[in-house]
């Protein structure tokens, strides 16, 4: 692999990032940190893409392209999410996720 780094290590890294992200998503109350956790989840997927691309089709670049694509979409998504969060802040003067229950049934 990359000068002697085995694939397993990449997978372990990605898995740890993924579950750290999940953990953060589930337990943090601040919307900004929840958004950050989401970025972690996305990037763990990106690592997997790159790693498998290098392992399986070293001569192709589709995995890389996909990663770049995900990064671009994530940027857009983050900007929209932050815009929503700012609006929520203006209305409720905090960004605690537990206060956001107006739209249940």
């Amino acid at each position, binding site marked *: 692999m990359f000068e002697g780094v085995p694939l397993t290590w990449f997978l372990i890294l990605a898995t740890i990032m993924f579950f750290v992200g999940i953990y953060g*998503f*589930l337990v943090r109350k601040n919307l900004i940190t929840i958004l950050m956790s989401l970025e972690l989840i996305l990037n763990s997927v990106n690592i997997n893409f790159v790693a498998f691309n290098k392992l399986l089709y070293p001569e192709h670049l589709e995995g890389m392209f996909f990663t770049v694509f995900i990064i671009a979409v994530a940027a857009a998504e983050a900007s929209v999410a932050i815009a929503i969060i700012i609006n929520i802040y203006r209305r409720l003067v905090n960004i605690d*996720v*537990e206060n*956001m229950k107006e739209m*249940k*049934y």
Partner: protein
Amino acid sequence: MFTYTVWIVLIPFFLFILIGFFGHKFKPLVSGVVGTSGLFASMALSYYTAYQYFFVVGKTGDVFGKIIGYNTVWLKLTEKLHIDLGVLLDPISVMMLIVITTVSFMVHLYSIGYMQGEKGYMRFFSMLSLFSFSMLGLVVATNIFQMYIFWELVGVSSYLLIGFYYTRDTAVAASKKAFIVTRFADLGFLIGILLLSFNTGTFDFLTLTDPNGVAITQGSGIMFLGLSTMTWSMIFIFMGGAGKSAMFPLHIWLPDAMEGPTPVSALIHAATMVVAGVYLVARMFPIFHFSAPVALDVVMCVGAFSSIFAAVIACTQYDIKRVLAYSTMSQIGLMMFALGVSGYGAEEGLGFMASMFHLFTHAFFKALLFLAAGAIIHAVHSNYMNDMGGLRKHLPITHITFLIACLSIAGIPPLAGFFSKDEILAAGHEKSMMLFILGLIISALTAFYMFRLYFSIFWGKQQQYHHTPHEAPKVMTIPLILLALGAVFAGFIPFSSFVTSDGKPFASHIDFAVAIPAVLVGVLGALTAMMFYMKETNIPETISRSLGGFYRAAFRKFYIDEIYLFITKKILFNYVSRPVAWFDRHIVDGSMNGISYVTNEVSTRIKGMQSGQLQQYAWIFVSGAIGLALAFIYLWTL
């Protein structure tokens, strides 16, 4: 050559559009005059066509052929199967063109006076035009599907005109009754058309009625209940014809249809639309004769029975329009009967010729009778002959024309009715003695009820009227006089040299063995009526009392209406409609309502699960995903 004939049909259609959509912009009288002059144009064209057809180009060799004047493919289903619209000219359709346009023109002219000051004057004229258009389209149909389309159109215009006084409950009920009964009969007609075209692969009359054509020579191998498919299809087609022509037992709508304005009764329910059934049988006659003789026997039996049945009822009724309605039914029964006994070929087809001849003359004297009845009702403001009497001094022109029509229908020579009825009786005579005697009885009854009507209206006791009855205006009496001329002279047309079953002219002659008894019974009937009704006597009462139950049954029209009501209201409504309605309301609607109710209940119960807490949802989602992943990893074994 005959392309212009399409205008005979189209002029009334454009009149309908013109009067119906723009009539209200002008004075009411304008629509009447426009409608009448349009019909005059149509009538002139018809006469020209008849002249061209019968005297100039119609004959090839010595046979009147069928000419397609105009044809257009209207609906192309496949290469072979297409529905056309067009104009077919042959002796019977040309004759019908004359009858329809003439009577329609007379009725239009008469209505200008009769409908004066009525609400819906232009509605009336636009509907009359619609009717004329449909009826003309029906008779010139080149194929059975075109006939069916126009058949329904005349049905709908009849419905609209019977219900013309739509504020009157009886008129509304009568129009509904007429529509439903004829519509029910037309269901049979449609089934017959489908069977026939399935069997022969064509709608076209030229192919269907050619005696050497495929349709007739191929025969019909398939049998059902002992009768061939062709026979069944012709019986079903005749069912449609019986419905329109008010044959027993589908006649119940005709007497009620008299709720419409009197000119409508004259045009639709006496001269033209009700003979459409006769025309239908005549049009399909070669098929009836060659492929379905059993169906032709059905036509004969139904015609003969309806004729005598209606004649008996007509003797007991008091509403003059109802008497005339039953008389119409009786005369149409005679025409059907004549068709039923007829053979095919020049002299063999005497019955066919007689039927068409009677149709022709009947149109004149029956339209005249109705229009005269309209003039009488107009003067007396009552439909009941009990309210009339001694009117001959007040209504001289109506009196004379009515008398002419009565003499004509009673078959007194040399009026038109004599010649045509004589041919019918001769045709019956050729078939069997019994049918001839039946015909004589019908003739006697006809003469009796017509003169009963005549004497009770114009003679009888002198009534005290609220205001002196006065003769109708000129615009109403002129059509009466013209039609009376028709009722006198139409019989002198040598019909057998124009209209025959196969187009070959033959010379008919008056058979004195038939004519003398026929005239005698006619005179007998008329004299009996004169004895009973000319002066006020108590003979009718005595006779009706001595007849007892039979008289009451005839007076109540043999309880046919009651039987229909019993079958529909007591049996169909209670034992079919109600259970079906219950099934619809409780089972079909119930299951739908049940589903929505259950969905509603369940969702109100479980909506509490939506807490609005994002992270709770995420927990459930993640644990579900992990659970599934575990299940896939450990339990999924291929």
